[in-house]
């Protein structure tokens, strides 16, 4: 028996996993470009959230049809991949269906895989119809033109092809069909190949087997370039998701320091600012104008976004025709982060200023100022992404670094500064209502 297939298999496997690992490293490096924040608190609650939201898909079912179909694809995909283990062992050692020695257990397993494969196939077709025939509004917003739209469909085609290959592989496996157990779905496909010689059947079976495993490896490597990355990142992302009430925005520490200093009567306001040990003056930047100013959790959010548009379809600004789309905020953040990452790759590990940034080149004023901070997007996201936090960080940059708030807001803030209310009323009149 030739060992060439085994060696070929090993090479494909190593190449596939190797390239994937390389991209995962890049992914981690890019995420780490973000500011550090401490998310080491309350681990039990974090695990619970991950189990409930990522593993248990608890947020998906708020839209019952999509939620149900998604659970089929998700469960199907995860479980069918147990089969990959057998394929890898068979491929490396030249065995055939090594697990079939387990008899009835094997039949049950393969039977389940086949049913799931069939269900996944059907679900994926319905997904495709929703996207392309029914044209569900949220998949046709302006940010979904071009690559994001193709990406969504490519994933569906991938799954259709993989499921088909799996079933064909089983249907044309003469020995397997002869067992008459576990072939719950494939037995109905076998007749399509009737009349073919055993040799031809074997050829088809082998081809399907090889295509199936190479397909899986290609798909694995496709993830990094796709919104499909969420199947992996949903887990860390829900783990690191905020545990605070949604209404709570973080208090900027750098500001707290300065405010404390300004309010402290014991500090001489005219004294030179304290210098740190290196002798250089640390100038803290307030808010975010580019991806490096965001926290690494916000960057992880961006890679996790599955572009489902649930956030955007719940967004009051978007619903009333404003340019703001929380999904686009996440997609822009990811695109810019990728651009920065490529820049670093091209310049031997250091970022070379490209004269671009997230604010202005990707996200505009008009989008940022349309947000009502209502948290509908945060609530809607099935994988605990917070687009609002990015919007607020960018507003902070505009207001505190650029003094570029809309005029009316500047008036409002001047009022607060001067008389403690957003309107020009005297603070001394605050209790007048009592006697009116």
């Amino acid at each position, binding site marked *: 028996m030739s060992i060439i297939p085994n060696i070929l298999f090993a090479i494909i496997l190593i190449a596939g996993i190797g390239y994937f690992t390389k991209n995962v490293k890049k992914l981690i490096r890019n995420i780490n470009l973000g500011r550090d924040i401490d998310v080491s608190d309350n681990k039990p609650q974090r695990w619970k959230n991950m189990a409930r939201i990522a593993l248990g898909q608890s947020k998906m079912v708020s839209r019952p049809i999509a939620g149900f179909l998604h659970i089929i694809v998700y469960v199907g995909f995860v479980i069918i991949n147990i089969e990959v283990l057998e394929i890898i062992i068979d491929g490396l050692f030249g065995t055939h269906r090594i697990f079939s020695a387990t008899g009835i257990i094997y039949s049950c397993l393969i039977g389940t895989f086949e049913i799931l494969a069939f269900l996944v196939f059907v679900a994926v077709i319905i997904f495709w119809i929703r996207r392309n025939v029914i044209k569900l509004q949220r998949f046709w917003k302006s940010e979904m033109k071009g690559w994001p739209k193709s990406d969504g469909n490519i994933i569906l085609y991938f799954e259709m092809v993989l499921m088909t290959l799996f079933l064909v592989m089983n249907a044309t496996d003469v020995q397997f069909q002869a067992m008459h157990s576990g072939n719950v779905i494939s037995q109905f496909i076998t007749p399509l190949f009737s009349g073919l010689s055993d040799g031809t059947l074997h050829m088809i079976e082998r081809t399907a087997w090889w295509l199936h495993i190479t397909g899986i490896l290609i798909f694995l490597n496709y993830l990094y370039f796709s919104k499909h990355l969420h199947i992996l990142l949903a887990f860390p992302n829900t783990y690191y998701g905020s545990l605070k009430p949604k209404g709570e925005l973080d208090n*900027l520490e750098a500001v707290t320091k300065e405010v404390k200093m300004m309010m402290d009567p014991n500090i001489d306001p005219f004294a030179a600012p304290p210098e740190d040990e290196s002798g250089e003056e640390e100038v803290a930047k307030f808010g975010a104008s580019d991806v490096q100013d965001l926290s690494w959790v916000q960057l992880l959010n961006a890679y996790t976004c599955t572009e489902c548009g649930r956030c955007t379809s719940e967004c009051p600004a978007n619903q009333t025709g404003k340019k703001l789309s929380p999904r686009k905020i996440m997609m822009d953040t990811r695109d810019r982060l990728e651009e920065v990452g490529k820049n670093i790759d091209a310049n031997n590990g250091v970022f070379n200023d490209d004269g671009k940034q997230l604010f202005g080149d990707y996200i505009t004023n008009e989008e940022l*100022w349309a947000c009502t901070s*209502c948290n509908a997007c945060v609530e809607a996201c099935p994988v605990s992404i917070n687009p609002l936090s990015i919007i607020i960080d960018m507003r902070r940059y505009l207001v*505190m670094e650029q003094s570029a708030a809309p005029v009316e*807001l500047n008036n409002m803030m001047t009022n*607060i500064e001067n008389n403690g209310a957003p309107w020009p009323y005297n603070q001394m*009149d605050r*209790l007048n209502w009592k006697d009116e």
Partner: protein
Amino acid sequence: MSELLKVPTMAEYMAQGKQPDVLFWVGCAGSFDDRAKKITKAFVKLLNKANVDFAVLGTEESCTGDPAKRAGNEFLFQMQAVTNIEVLNDYEVKKIVTACPHCFNTIKNEYPELGGNYEVMHHTQFLKSLLDEGKLTIEGGQFKGKRITFHDPCYLGRANNVYEAPRDLIRKLEAELVEMKNCKSKGLCCGAGGAQMFKDAEKGDKEVNVARTEQAIEVKPDIIAAGCPFCNTMMTDGVKAKDKEADVEVMDIAELIANAQDL
């Protein structure tokens, strides 16, 4: 005002060496906005009726800083916060009630890190607790059988998961509580949050408050109940824009309860 409201200030309490059970944080809208002042008074009437031992800061109160923070001005926010916290801590305030979900959210969630730790309640939660303790009774009165829909304020609902207290109070009025297409955690914003109240909306094809009012009008209510002075303004404007002033009234929960007992 026919009947005199009892509104003691913290300074007065301090002068007598006393400490009230709870501080009523009135907020900027509640102090200055003509519509919101009515809500403030309705709430005070209920406090007086239930003999609640409360006080206000009066002229010592200042904006919580919420609109500044949401507009991105963290400096101004923290200046306001630190100043307010100093006043509150000097008076040794333990418990705060407010009729504004924005003040509620800011003091409850964002002040602790800056040194302000208080038990904070929204007025609907507070009224509910008065009811549970038997200090306040609610009768249906003029609202019996009326169709009332509740608009969830984002900063009470989604932001802080308070959905039931206002609804429980409406049910107590023996009114028919009807829910809009988007309610509770899926409630649609009125359009005022995030400092939008103080500026014109960005370019679009509709105003958010009109979209929300349309959802409300769809369920044919007699009254749109609100729990936030800003939502109140937005919904009132929405009703006007839809020419429905004759059929639909926008009222705060505190007003509903006060009116039901002819206070």
